[in-house]
């Protein structure tokens, strides 16, 4: 497979020189909101929304200008300043605005902006609203830094910023021990991935003498195959951490402890998409190493099935959606791992997923808003009538995710399944199976939440959310329906210069595999209805079979982590503590005791009488004088 030569970016002119505004605006917002506290207590949230809006306008303007530019001038690099120079390395801070990053910028600022607006309503009664919006702005600024960076080091800055912001937001209600623990868990597991990133960047600096995308793209061909594979695998480790892929998936489900808009932001617009972005952005590396690509495919496939499985068995509406995110990101990783044939599809699915998953998360938030923040779907039921807007918008998201014809997911997911069959029959079959399971658990979610009979707890009076929350839902629902159709014939060509993918002809009419997919999806929907739609749903979860129990326990991911990592590490720590207490402290204490004994003697000399000290001085002078004279004499 010969990688396509990507087109080098041209220097920034005109409007593109102001690309940094995209990052600067939300960063400024975060600074003002977090730094000037009570001065902006009231106006802060609106300021936050305004900065994101401004970012979106800038991104849109750049996008329009890029559309108008000829293909070879669409990628633009904006040099900002030199970060530092050390030895032979000069590290510049620069932005790369190309076809890939501008799509991300639009997704982040667009969906992120809608989530901001939604949060105005959702967090209206929270005392620390201002701080929440500050963190949201920080999150967006970090994510924009990540996608707009023109080298891996600046990308890493954004990468860590995203990790920090996610920590702050997941643990936003830190007075809940579970939230605090979830935040810590997310942070620590992300650090594992970050280790891979750091090593990968170090390897790049060592091998290419630079971490700029352009140098890596050019230098990759001349690299020893072992190095490319190593860098590829390390990047994959980083991507796994950020995108919650197996084996670093465990934090994502716990991350539901954060406020729902945060979950939406993490799952749709920021954070988890970073891994996919990283793999696509590093296509020059992955194109050259089939082994690393295979690892990506395996990780993606395993995750998509694991996520779907978890989604099937959870009763917590947010955790079902979290499982679904894992699964969908698995699809994207799978597509990205397929290589040039899949990059565009990965990004395509990422964008459509950003729309419909944000829609569904915000919908779930709206449901919770109406149900006194209860997340257990077994306490829902028959909500379609009481929350009409939420229901209809959620339904749009539902259709999009299961791949109902002509909705967003239909286009993007089918392409991935097709490409997976192109990779190997096994992977394709598994991806197909995943699509069926997706249809099953999403149907289950819809039926348990909106269908059936009331199973509400006492004192719950569902009500529709205010307009500030429903309008973003409607916008996102519309996107869920049409985004696929809009981008289907366009995105491959658009991304070709940036992602180095091969453009395929796409038809409106499904291919045989497309038909098969629709069949499997229909079967999934039917099974979902068969199990959950015909008879009332028990208010307490039934015992369930082995598969369901495993799913409820998140496939024992935590137990595995516990056994494989936590316990050995604790054991080593205990051993280290014991060694420290016995061996090192023993030695040190011995020394200390010896010195202590010495000082007891010394204290006698220190009697506190000035005259005695004066005497000592005189005697000392005498001694030194005598020694000097004798020394000179000798």
């Amino acid at each position, binding site marked *: 497979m010969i990688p396509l030569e990507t087109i080098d970016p041209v220097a920034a002119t005109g409007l593109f020189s102001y690309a940094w505004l995209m990052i600067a605006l939300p960063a400024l917002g975060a600074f003002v909101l977090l730094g000037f506290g009570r001065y902006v207590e009231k106006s802060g949230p609106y300021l936050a929304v305004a900065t994101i809006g401004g970012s979106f306008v800038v991104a849109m303007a750049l996008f329009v200008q890029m559309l108008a530019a000829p293909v070879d001038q669409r990628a633009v690099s904006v040099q900002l300043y030199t970060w530092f120079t050390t030895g032979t390395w000069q590290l510049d801070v620069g932005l790369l605005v190309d076809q890939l990053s501008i799509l991300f910028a639009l997704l982040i600022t667009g969906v992120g902006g809608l989530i901001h607006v939604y949060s105005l309503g959702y967090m209206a009664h929270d005392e620390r609203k201002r701080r929440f919006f500050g963190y949201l702005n920080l999150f967006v600024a970090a994510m924009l830094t990540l996608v707009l960076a023109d080298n891996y080091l600046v990308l890493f800055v954004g990468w860590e910023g995203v990790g920090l912001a996610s920590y702050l937001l997941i643990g936003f209600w830190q007075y809940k021990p579970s939230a605090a623990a979830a935040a810590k868990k997310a942070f620590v597991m992300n650090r594992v991935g970050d280790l891979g990133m750091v090593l990968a960047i170090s390897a790049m600096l060592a091998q290419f003498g630079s971490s700029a995308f352009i140098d890596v793209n050019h230098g990759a061909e001349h690299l020893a195959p072992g190095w490319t594979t190593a860098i590829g695998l390390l990047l994959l480790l980083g991507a796994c951490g950020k995108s919650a892929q197996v084996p670093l998936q465990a934090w994502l489900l716990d991350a539901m402890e954060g406020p729902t808009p945060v979950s939406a932001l993490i799952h749709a617009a920021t954070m988890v998409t970073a891994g996919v972005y990283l793999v696509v952005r590093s296509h020059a590396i992955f194109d050259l190493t089939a082994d690393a690509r295979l690892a990506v495919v395996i990780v993606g496939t395993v995750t998509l099935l694991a996520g779907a499985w978890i989604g099937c068995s959870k009763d917590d509406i947010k955790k079902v959606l979290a499982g679904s995110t894992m699964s969908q990101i698995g699809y994207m990783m799978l597509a990205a791992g397929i290589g040039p044939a899949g990059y565009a599809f990965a990004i395509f699915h990422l964008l459509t997923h950003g729309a419909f998953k944000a829609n569904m998360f915000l919908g779930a938030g709206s449901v919770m808003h109406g149900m006194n923040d209860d997340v257990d779907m077994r306490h829902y039921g028959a909500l379609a009538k009481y929350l009409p807007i939420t229901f209809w918008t959620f339904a749009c998201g539902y259709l999009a995710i299961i791949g109902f014809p002509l909705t967003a997911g239909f286009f993007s997911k089918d392409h991935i399944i097709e490409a997976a069959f192109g990779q190997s029959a096994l992977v394709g079959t598994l991806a197909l199976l995943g699509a069926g399971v997706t249809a099953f658990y999403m149907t289950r979610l819809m039926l348990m939440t909106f269908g059936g009979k009331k199973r509400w707890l006492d004192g719950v009076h569902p009500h529709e959310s205010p307009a500030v929350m429903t309008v973003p839902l409607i916008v996102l629902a519309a996107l869920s329906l049409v985004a696929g159709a809009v981008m289907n014939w366009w995105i491959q060509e658009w991304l070709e210069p940036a992602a180095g993918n091969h453009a395929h002809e796409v038809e409106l009419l499904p291919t045989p595999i497309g038909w098969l997919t629709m069949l499997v999806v229909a079967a999934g929907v039917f099974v979902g209805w068969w199990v959950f739609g015909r008879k009332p749903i028990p208010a307490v979860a039934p015992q369930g079979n082995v598969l369901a129990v495993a799913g409820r326990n998140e496939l024992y991911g935590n137990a595995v982590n516990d056994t494989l990592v936590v316990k050995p590490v604790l054991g080593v720590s205990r051993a280290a503590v014991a060694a420290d207490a016995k061996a090192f402290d023993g030695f040190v204490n011995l020394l200390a005791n010896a010195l202590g004994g010495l000082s007891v003697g010394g204290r006698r000399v220190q*009697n506190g*009488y000035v*005259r*005695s000290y004066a*005497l000592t001085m*005189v*005697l000392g*002078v*005498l001694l030194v*004088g*005598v020694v000097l*004279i004798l020394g000179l004499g000798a």
Partner: protein
Amino acid sequence: MTIVFWICAPLMVLGGLGLILFRKAVYSALSMALTMVCLAVLYASLDAPFLFAIQIIVYTGAILMLFLFVLMLVGVDTPDSIVETIKGQRILSAIGALGLLGLMIFSIGGAVTGPSAGLAGAEQAAGGNVQGIAQLLFGRYVWVFELTSALLITAAVGAMILAHAQRTKPKLGQREQADARMKAYADQGTHPGSLPNSGVFATSNSIATPALLPDGTIAPDSVSQTLAERGAQLDSTQLRALTAETFERAERIRDEEDEEL
């Protein structure tokens, strides 16, 4: 020059010994003053008129007076006792002092050779003693000179801070003082009025003179306690006897004059 030296040197040694041997600090300070004045004279004889003036003005004039002020300020308490409290301090001090003396005399012994040059030539070259010092002070040593200004200002500020006492209680007004006095009278029977004057006799009315009570005994409050402790208190009974005698004589003379008339 030699004569000057041999006059001054014994005086200085005597002064130094007086400094460390007098039990009363005031005498020590005065012995010190003697040493310093003699030292100034030696400076003059060593062609150092500038230092001569400085020594008199700064050391004898300012520093020693400061010592005396502080001495008076902290009160002339009981003289040092002669009993040594630190074990072995005296003997070891003696050994140390003798050793030091021996060491330095030994080292001086061979240190200086050849005739002294005297400062006449240098003074001529510089245009005078003060000019010579000034050239060095504002030439080679100007940096040190500037540093001493920093040192002095720091010392002045430091002394002010150290000697300054923060008022911790509110200042007592007339009313509070009167209340306290009445309270003391109520609790302990202390007399609320002012203390008695010192005694006034025909031959003495100094503050060291105690006043007498109507019954002829001494009023203890009429003399400052410090004076009493120092043993400076005069004997009023003697004074009274003297006064009475004088009065008697005067009256007798008057009577005689009256009789004559």
